[in-house]
């Protein structure tokens, strides 16, 4: 289980995250929803060690992750699919997948097969440069690359960003599939509608604080959430 307690993050005096606490139990899908700039991405980047927190703790099982370097955190079975995909554009699809498994020393064949099965499109294009893929394919590659690390928990930052609705559907199906196979998912989304539908538990983040929480279903039917994030207020 991933436990975040009273996390605070400052960027040069600006408080991006004021006080965020949440739990991600094993094998569940937990989502953080909220508007742009609410502090969701900063939270993920701080968990993986790219951003220093200025207060609070992040615990992974018994291990305290605060202050650890990113490679040590990744070694603990945590990975992040960054916002905007960030595949390595000048390297082939296959190379991108191999980089995802950078810290592993065992054979990759099985996992490559698993990723290719999940994303047949990537197999067809394994020799193509990642920069030439479409946005949806790049997102699949980013997820596949993260899976190559054989993570216990995969954090995803806005996987639906800038994708066509039909592709978004695909991506969410895959997130569910990945989770069914036993990987814990921490999902950050502005597309609250989709995220809440697949989430076991959800937190609403506003101005760097958790303002609401509940199961995905509860929040989907909550009037405040509807008005603010789903645009479907019964009015």
């Amino acid at each position: 289980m991933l436990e975040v307690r009273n996390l605070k993050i400052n960027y040069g005096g600006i408080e991006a995250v004021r006080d965020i606490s949440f739990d991600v139990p094993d094998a569940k899908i937990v989502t953080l929803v909220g508007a742009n700039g609410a502090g969701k991405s900063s939270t993920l980047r701080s968990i993986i060690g790219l951003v220093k927190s200025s207060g609070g703790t992040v615990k992974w099982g018994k291990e305290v992750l605060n202050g650890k370097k990113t490679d040590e955190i990744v070694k603990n079975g945590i990975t992040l699919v960054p916002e905007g995909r960030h595949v390595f554009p000048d390297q082939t699809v296959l190379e991108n997948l191999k980089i995802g498994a950078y810290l592993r020393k065992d054979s990759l064949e099985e996992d490559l097969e698993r990723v290719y099965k999940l994303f047949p499109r990537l197999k067809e294009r394994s020799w193509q440069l990642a920069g030439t893929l479409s946005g949806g394919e790049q997102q699949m590659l980013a997820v596949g690359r993260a899976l190559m690390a054989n993570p216990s928990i995969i954090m995803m930052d806005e996987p639906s960003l800038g994708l066509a609705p039909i592709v978004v559907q695909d991506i969410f199906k895959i997130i569910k599939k990945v989770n069914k196979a036993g990987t814990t998912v921490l999902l950050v989304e502005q597309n609250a509608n989709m995220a809440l539908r697949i989430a076991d538990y959800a937190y609403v983040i506003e101005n760097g604080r958790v303002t609401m929480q509940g199961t995905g279903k509860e929040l989907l039917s909550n009037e405040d959430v509807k008005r603010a994030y789903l645009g479907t207020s019964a009015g």
Partner: protein
Amino acid sequence: MTLSYLVQQLLNGLSLGGAYAMIAIGYTMVYGILRMINFAHGDEFMVAGYFMVYAIAVFPWFVSVPLVIGGTVLMSVLIEKTAYKPLRNAPRMSVMISAIGVSYFLQNLANYLFTAMPQSYPQISVLKYVYTFGDVSVSRVTLLAPILTLVLAFLLVMFVNHSKLGMAMRACSKDQDTARIMGIRVDNIITMTFVIGGALAAIGSILYFTDRNTVQPYSGSLPGLKCFVAAVIGGIGNIPGAVVGGFIVGICQIIITAAGYSVFSDAFTFLLLIIILIGRPSGLFGEKAVEKV
């Protein structure tokens, strides 16, 4: 102008070009990974020259050569750790200015320690052995320089393109944060880059100074600048480009000197730079921009 004279000059050009290429690779690799021009690189090459002067006074050449390479690598890594690494999160211009500072520091340190008097560079007999073909006579180092350069550049390209570390290196040069998420220790990759750059600068220095006989505190300044030009001509960030650029600059310099216009040879190098920057700013083999979002 006789044929043998032409052949002789061409060989000299290839030799000088080889030495330039070695140093240009150092500029290009550091740029590739840190997006900064390591202005101290040419001066590291000069200090490597002094290392040899003092190493050969004590040890035989086959001990001195690895010592010089090791010393230069150490210096290169030390410069990175003290002058560049603390500025990792600063604007890129700050690191560049720090590099210029290191450059002047090395020049003045050499001036202080070794005086401004040119010192004679050790003549290693194995390298100086002279072959004669008819009217053409070449020393072994002249022949060795281009061959060694091509072999090392080939090995380096293979390493960068086909090894796991090379893969990590290319990942870091594109996107350091994402490379970190993959579990790559970016700092180690950067150190490795400076190790390779330092080793090549040391080898380049041996090839260059053996043919030129003296070393002084400013020996690295103009050649360093020319090698930077070579890296830009080839397309900075591109290793084969740096090699081609090195040979172009070296051969042009020798041809112009041989034609009797040695006064203009330096000016020509920079004219070439201007022409390339106007006509093809990304250099001959510059990074191609495939990016689709």
